[in-house]
Structure formats: C-alpha cells, structure tokens
C-alpha cells in the first residue's frame, strides 16, 4: 500500500470509506510523525487514537486525524493558547468547532503551537518557543496559526484547525505554501475558542488543497450554535468544488492592496495567477477599497481594545498561573507580569489606553467608524465583482528574529489580510508560486456566505496553477 502521508485528507477519507485504508493505521502514521516533530509545531500530541476510531471512520471526515490550534478548548487536554499564564490548563469542555469535527469523524491528533493568544504574525510570540518553517528552518511559518500551518505543510498532520483575527490563518498558510480559509464572521461557532478579539476571531481550516478545505469546512458550518450569540446559520451546504473554468466570473483587484510595499516575487506570482484566471474565462479589473489603507490602524485599536478586556480574566484567582503575594494587587501584578509575554502586554496597554475615558472617542470610536467604512467599501466592490483578489502576504517567509525588534514592521505582515477581517467577509489563501525558493499566496475574498463560490474559483485556479512543490519531508 502507498504511503498514507502522501494522500490528501479527502483522498484518505475516501479510501477509509472504501475500506482500503485502516483509520487506526492512518492515525498511527501521523501520530508518530507529530510526536517526532522537529519544527515545534505541536504543544501536545495524542498518545493513541480515540477508542471510537472505527465509528469515527464512518463519518464524512473518515477518521482522518486533525491538528487543532492550542487556543481551542479540548476537554482534559492542555489548552494554553500559547501562553505561560495558561500552562497546563485543561478545560472541562470542548469547543463547539472541535466537537463538530470529532462528531464528523476527525479525531484529535494534537494541539498546535501558536503566537500567545493569537497575537503575532510569526509565531515567535509563543510562550512555548517559535515554530520553524518547514521550507527553511531559519524562517518563520507566519502566525498566529503557525503551528497548524507548519504541521500541515510538513506532513505532520493531514489538516488543521486555525483561527484568523487579522490574517492568522491566511498569512501562515501563504508562508507555508498551503490553503487557508477564514470563513464569514459568525459562520463557525466561537464557543470554546480562547478569545483574542471577539468581533474578529473566526475559526477555519488549514489544508493541503482546496478540496480538503471544502470537505472540512462543510462540517464546521451549519446550524447556528446556541452557545455563541454571534454565530449564524450557514444558508447552504458546502459542496466539494468541481469548477475547471471561470467563465463569467468578475474578479476585482483592489488598487490599495496590490501595489505598494509588496515584494517583487510576490507581485510577479500574483500577476501570473491573474493571467491564469483570465485564461480560464474570468474578467479581471482594477477596483477600489478606498478606506483599506486605514484598516491596519483601525485594527490595531479595535483588536487590542477587545483583547485588553478579554484577557482580564487571567488574574491568578481561578485557574492557570498564580504568583503568590502578600496583597491582592501584588498577586495580580506578579501573575500577569510573569504569565504574559511582551507582545501581549503591549497590546493590553494599547487597548486599555484606547478605551480610557477621554481617549475612547479619539481611538475606539474613530476606529469603529473606519471599520464601518471598510464594510461599505467591500459591499460596494461586491456590487461590481464576484470576488476580489490580492496577495495574501506582502512578503514570503522572513527570517527568525528579523522583525521581533520592530513591532510595526511585524504588524505590516497583516496589511493585506486585515481589511477582510474588519469587513467580516470570507477569504482564502491559495499557494500560487515560489519566490526565492519560498511559497507565495494568492488571496480571494467574497461577500458574506460566498464560501462555495470562493472554493470553486480557488479550485479552478489550483488545478491550473498546479502548485506541486512540497518542503523536504523528514
């Protein structure tokens, strides 16, 4: 029998359904690879498959094991959100998204490393050490879902769950040469996702190809989760993509997101993919998202503001780290000083400041208005175009340590992904080429709940691009 690791998740699932692949064997194959992980992609790996593997194999996901970003709560399994303040924390319940996937037949393979509380674009902000990029171990995998991206790219996991607040699925997918999808805000339940910025956080898959992404997304969305007030019922089922042509598809290319500050190699790959789209029958035209240049500043007010409040619960009183002290204030101060990393503290300070009386209007209020404008920009663009396209990341994977001393340079990594997050629209990153031996990513975004269209167009492009590079596997 051929090497099960070489199979895509969808291929593996259909072989299991056909009785041609033993799900326990499949699990073992990945389990031993994940346990031998040299990229620091995993923070925890299951020792053995769940007892119900046989039953799971019957499900639509065929018992194909799943790597899950650390910030998803998994009952009785460490869920630390990449933070020392939650070291060893084992929740009493499992996140809705993970539970739905388990019920659909994807057993938990392991928990993946991430930037602390999803704050970062390089995975260097993890309390458990950086993740290495499988294409070049001297480089970052992107972040914050860097562990999930690296694990899938390196064949340590068939597929993985990540979260995206300002690009945290799409950017690492781009830097690791895989597919990453951030669904419409509200499409996937946030219940059990350790929050960074509640109005932006969204769970989504990181996969080797577009079909895998469609297969797993179909089991994440559906009826709304009554435990998450912001979750929405998905209006249709997710179909496996089949398109080979793009006739009639109108693709807009926002001027604001396709020029300045983007590396030549990335731009070249982007232009090439646009040509392919045209060849497949799509019309490609320039379009405008006039407020997109303000997106990053608005994001770095809104996300930290919400985070400063969301992270207040880590106070040493009930769970996680507690540094004992004489007084309550001292206990709080020491616990949070020792438990949080530098970037998390920076964002808590930023957010606290933005919400302070006297500054609220100037920062939080104004940022909310920018966000409204960006929502309107996208709405207007989607009146003329089916989808918009731009590169996912302005650069390929950068070297470890290259941006750690310069937070603003680091924040620029998200400049092309943040606008879609603020607008709450679905967006997907597709590997579309190589630049200096490192993968580049092509980003597609559509109106709310256009995931089927997005997947279809991505699938047609994927077949035409025929990106078949893989990092050297151990």
């Amino acid at each position, binding site marked *: 029998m051929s090497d099960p690791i070489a199979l895509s998740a969808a291929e593996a699932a259909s072989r299991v359904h056909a009785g041609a692949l033993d799900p326990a064997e499949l699990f073992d194959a990945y389990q031993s690879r994940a346990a031998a992980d040299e990229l620091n992609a995993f923070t925890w790996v299951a020792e053995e498959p769940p007892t119900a593997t046989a039953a799971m194999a019957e499900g639509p996901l065929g018992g194909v094991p799943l790597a899950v970003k650390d910030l*998803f709560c998994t009952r009785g399994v460490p869920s630390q959100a990449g933070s020392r303040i*939650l070291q060893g924390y084992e929740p009493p319940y499992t996140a809705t998204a993970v539970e739905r996937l388990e019920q659909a037949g994807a057993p938990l393979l392991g928990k993946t490393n991430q930037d602390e509380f999803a704050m970062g674009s390089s995975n260097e902000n993890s309390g458990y050490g950086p993740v290495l990029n499988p294409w070049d171990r001297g480089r970052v995998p992107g972040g914050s879902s860097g562990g999930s991206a690296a694990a899938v790219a390196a064949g340590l996991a068939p597929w993985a769950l990540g979260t995206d607040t300002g690009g945290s699925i799409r950017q690492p997918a781009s830097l690791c040469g895989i597919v990453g999808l951030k669904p419409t805000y509200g499409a996937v339940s946030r219940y059990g996702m350790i929050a960074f910025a*509640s109005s932006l956080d969204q769970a989504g898959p990181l996969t080797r190809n577009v079909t895998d992404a469609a297969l797993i997304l179909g089991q994440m969305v559906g009826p709304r989760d009554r435990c998450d*007030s912001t979750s929405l019922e998905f209006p249709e089922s997710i179909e496996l993509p089949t398109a080979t042509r793009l006739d009639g598809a109108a693709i807009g290319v926002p001027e604001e997101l396709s020029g300045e500050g983007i590396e030549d190699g990335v731009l070249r790959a982007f232009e090439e993919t646009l040509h392919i789209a045209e060849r497949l029958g799509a019309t490609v035209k320039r379009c405008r998202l006039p407020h997109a240049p303000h997106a990053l500043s608005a994001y770095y007010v809104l996300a930290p503001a919400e985070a400063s*409040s969301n992270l207040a619960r880590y106070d040493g*009183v009930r769970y996680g780290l507690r540094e004992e002290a004489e007084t309550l204030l001292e206990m709080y101060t020491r616990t949070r000083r020792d438990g949080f990393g530098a970037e998390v503290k920076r964002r808590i300070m930023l957010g606290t400041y933005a919400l302070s009386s006297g500054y609220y209007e100037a920062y*939080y209020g104004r940022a909310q208005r920018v966000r409204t404008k960006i929502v309107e920009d996208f709405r207007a663009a989607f009146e003329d175009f089916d989808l918009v396209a731009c590169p996912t990341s302005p650069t390929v994977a950068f070297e470890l340590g290259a941006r750690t001393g310069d937070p603003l340079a680091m924040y620029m990594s998200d400049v092309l992904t943040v606008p879609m997050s603020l607008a709450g629209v679905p967006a997907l990153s597709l590997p579309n080429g190589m630049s200096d031996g490192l993968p580049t990513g092509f980003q597609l975004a559509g109106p709310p709940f256009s995931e089927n269209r997005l997947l279809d167009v991505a699938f047609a492009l994927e077949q035409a691009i025929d990106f078949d590079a893989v990092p050297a596997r151990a």
Partner: protein
Amino acid sequence: MSDGAATSPNDGLDGFEPVIGLEIHVQLSTATKMFCSCPLSFGEPPNTYTCPVCLGLPGSLPVVNARAIHFGLMIGLALECELAPRSSFHRKNYFYPDLPKGYQISQYDEPLCRGGRLGEVRIHRAHLEEDAAKLVHVGTSGRIHGSDVSVVDFNRGGTPLVEIVTEPDLHDPVRAREWLELLRTTLRQLGVSDVNMEEGSLRCDANVSIRLGGSVALGTKTELKNMNSFRFLERGIRAELARQAELLRAGEPVVQETLHFDPQTGKLSALRSKEEAHDYRYFPEPDLVPIQIDEDMVAAARAQLPELPAARVERYESEFGLTAASARHLAFRVELGAYFEAALAELARAGDGHGGVDAAPVQIDPAVAQQLANWISGELVRRLGEEDPADSRVAPAQLARLVALISQRAITAGAGRQVLDRMVQQGGDPEGIVETEGLGAIASGDEALAGVVAAAIEAHQGAAEKIKAGNAKAMGPIIGYVMRETKGRADGAEVSRLVRAQLGLEN
C-alpha cells in the same frame, strides 16, 4: 436615636434641604442565570451552581436570558418607562476576585428602560446586568484588607439583576424608606423578584446631598452603599444628612465619596474598595448582539402586568372609600389587599337581597368596607404578624361574616375579638363560635342586663355618686363590672344608657 420619631425627619438640618436619589439592584427570580443555563442558587453548597460561562473560563461565551429581558420589560412598564426598541450590552471593566471575567456585562448608553415614574419619584433608567460572585473573607476584619483568607462562591455570580436609578426627587429619609417599600411591593406584585433586603435580592444605595432650602443647585453628593434593611436605609440617610449639615455649618466642604453605614454604631466610614475612582472603560460587549425589542415582546410583558400598588391605593380610596392610610396599608402588603378583596366580595354577596354569584357588583357601604379594612389591618394582623392571612385558619368569608355580625350589632366588638381569637386558634365559623360560647349581644331591654347594671351600681357606690355629680368619666368601673359579668356581650352604649337611667339622670 429612635426610628420613626414623631419629630419631622429633617429636624436639626437648620434649613438645609436634603436631596436623595436611590440606586436599587433587584435580583430577578428567573429560573436560570443572566448569561448561562445554571439555575439560580438559594444557599446551596458553594460553587455547585456554576459552569464555564459563569466561572469566566477561557473560551466561554454569554447568551442572554430571554426571561430576564421579559422581566426587565415588565419592570419598565410598571415604572412607566420608555422601552428601548434596541438595547445593547456593554462591558464594565475592573479587577476584583468576585468578577471572574474581569468585567461585568452591564448596559451603558442603550439601557432597556429610560425615564419613568413611580409615585412622586421619577425614574432615570433601569437596565439589566449580571451579579458578581460572593466573597467570603475569613479572618477578623471581615473585609478583603487584612483578612487571612478570602474565598469566592460563584453560585451567585451571573444572577440576573435589574439596576433601577431614580432622579434625586426624595427629600427626607422617611419618604425614601416609604418609596423603597412602594417599589418593593410593586416588584413583588410583578412576580419578578423575591425583593428581600436581608437576603440581598433587593439592595439599595443612596446618593445624598443637602442644599440651602429654595436653592436649585445640587450640593456635593456622597454615596451610601448597600444598606440591607429599610430601617438601615432610613437611619443611614439620616446620619449622613446630619454629618453633611454639620460639615456645612462648620464651613467645611462635603467631599464626594462612597460611605458605608454601620448600623451597630450608627457611624459612617469611607469605603476603601473596588469602588475607588475607577475608569471602567465601558465598550460594547462584542460577544452579544444588540437586542431588538419588538411589539410582541412588549405586548407579552404588558399582558402579564398585574394591578400595581399605586393603582390599587387609588382604587381602594375611590371605589371603597377607604382612608388613605388604610388603602396604603392594604395595597402595599399585596396579600392583605387580596384577602381584603376576597372578604369584601363575601360581604357583597351576603348583602341585603343582592346575593348570588352572578349578581352585579354591589355597592358596599363605605363604613362597612372601612370596618372590614380595620379588622384586617388591625385585629387580624395583630394576631397573625407577617403570616399571609390566606394561609391562616380564618377564611376571608368567615372574617367578612364576623365583621357583618359586629356591624349588625349581633355581637359587640369585644365579643368579636374573642370570636376572632377562637377562629385564629382553632378555626370555625363565627356564628358557631358565638352560639357555643354564648357571645351573642344582650338585646336592649333585656331584663337580665338591667339587673346586672343595678348590681354594678351597688358595687360601685362612690362612682355612682360622682356620675350623679356630673363626672361622666366615672362610668368606667361600672361598665367594666357589667362587661365582666356579661363576658363582653353587652353593648357599651346601652349599658351607659341604663346606668344613667337607673341613677335618675337624663339620657
């Protein structure tokens, strides 16, 4: 200092006018908590009614309790508030161990209810929020500062609260207390809360300031926290008013601060706690979507509104002719009002020739209605205390018949009290008790009564002389003798008439 002294509540303020506003927290009696499905706790073992949501565990999310919204709307309607068509939640951020998320989900610029009125007091707003957990400080101080150990019981955490804020429309501590009693009765009548101050389901803070009489500008206010009984509220405000007047007389300013009233010592002390000047960094709760209040929700709340105490007082006065004091007493104790109306229905049914269940409402003689009210508020409450008369052995119909016997002079009031004693202790019909105990009134012209009167005069010759000399008050011992001999069955007026007749005096 005694409560409810006969002097005016604002004596000793040297012409300063008190200005008082109240902030009331009401725990709603929903089945489950504000944002999770844990049942509300009533003294269960600590930390047994908790879940990831009310413990603020990572990843958990709140979901609004629809019943709490419904109750909030009922309160808003009862307080004649404007109901928001769209209402949203905000986070109020501060650190304290009783606040598991590091913020309280509350309402800020889009409260459920705005601008209402209850009695003479305007309502500023009423909004929904979640209660904090309960901190227990082990050690001598009883406060978090200096305690040996502090433990947290999260059972209470997340209980739905409605915060009601009044305008500063109260001007004396007695009225503040009375108004809070009216509010409590109103909420109890709505059935939305246990409204028990001792148990903390009704909590009241007071904003207190004084100003020169006639002045429009408000003085600097202080906030009195958590006075946990109606008595303490009145005493606390009284003490704070006196303290502020003292300061102003001495030419010293009142400092804006939060104070704690110690009912043991009557002293006020500044609170050092989470309430110290905080920037709560309010911002819209991103985990919840705004609530759209539609007409159906308002209609459903309106449909469940019972008659409220303020309306009931009015009806008792206009429809039954009760005195204001009597009407208030019955209307403010919901169960007494219900009992009164049940008894009244019986009187109407039994009323002259108008009987029959289907009969049209009968006009009740105001004097009889008042007499019935007096017997309920006075004699019956004296015997039952706080007990709901509906739970006693005395059925409303039986009390009504007892009062009818008295008003028809079939028995005397004194005999009526003896009958009521028996009814309360053993139950039974008033007519039967009168019969078996022989308590029927002695009919006027009864020969036996004349004999007893003669014997009484014989036994009190001195008193008889004084009466003859014109001292009517000397009648007492003679009447007392007759009442003892007749077991209170004689009519006092008739006895008095007989005494005067037998002494040869005009009647």
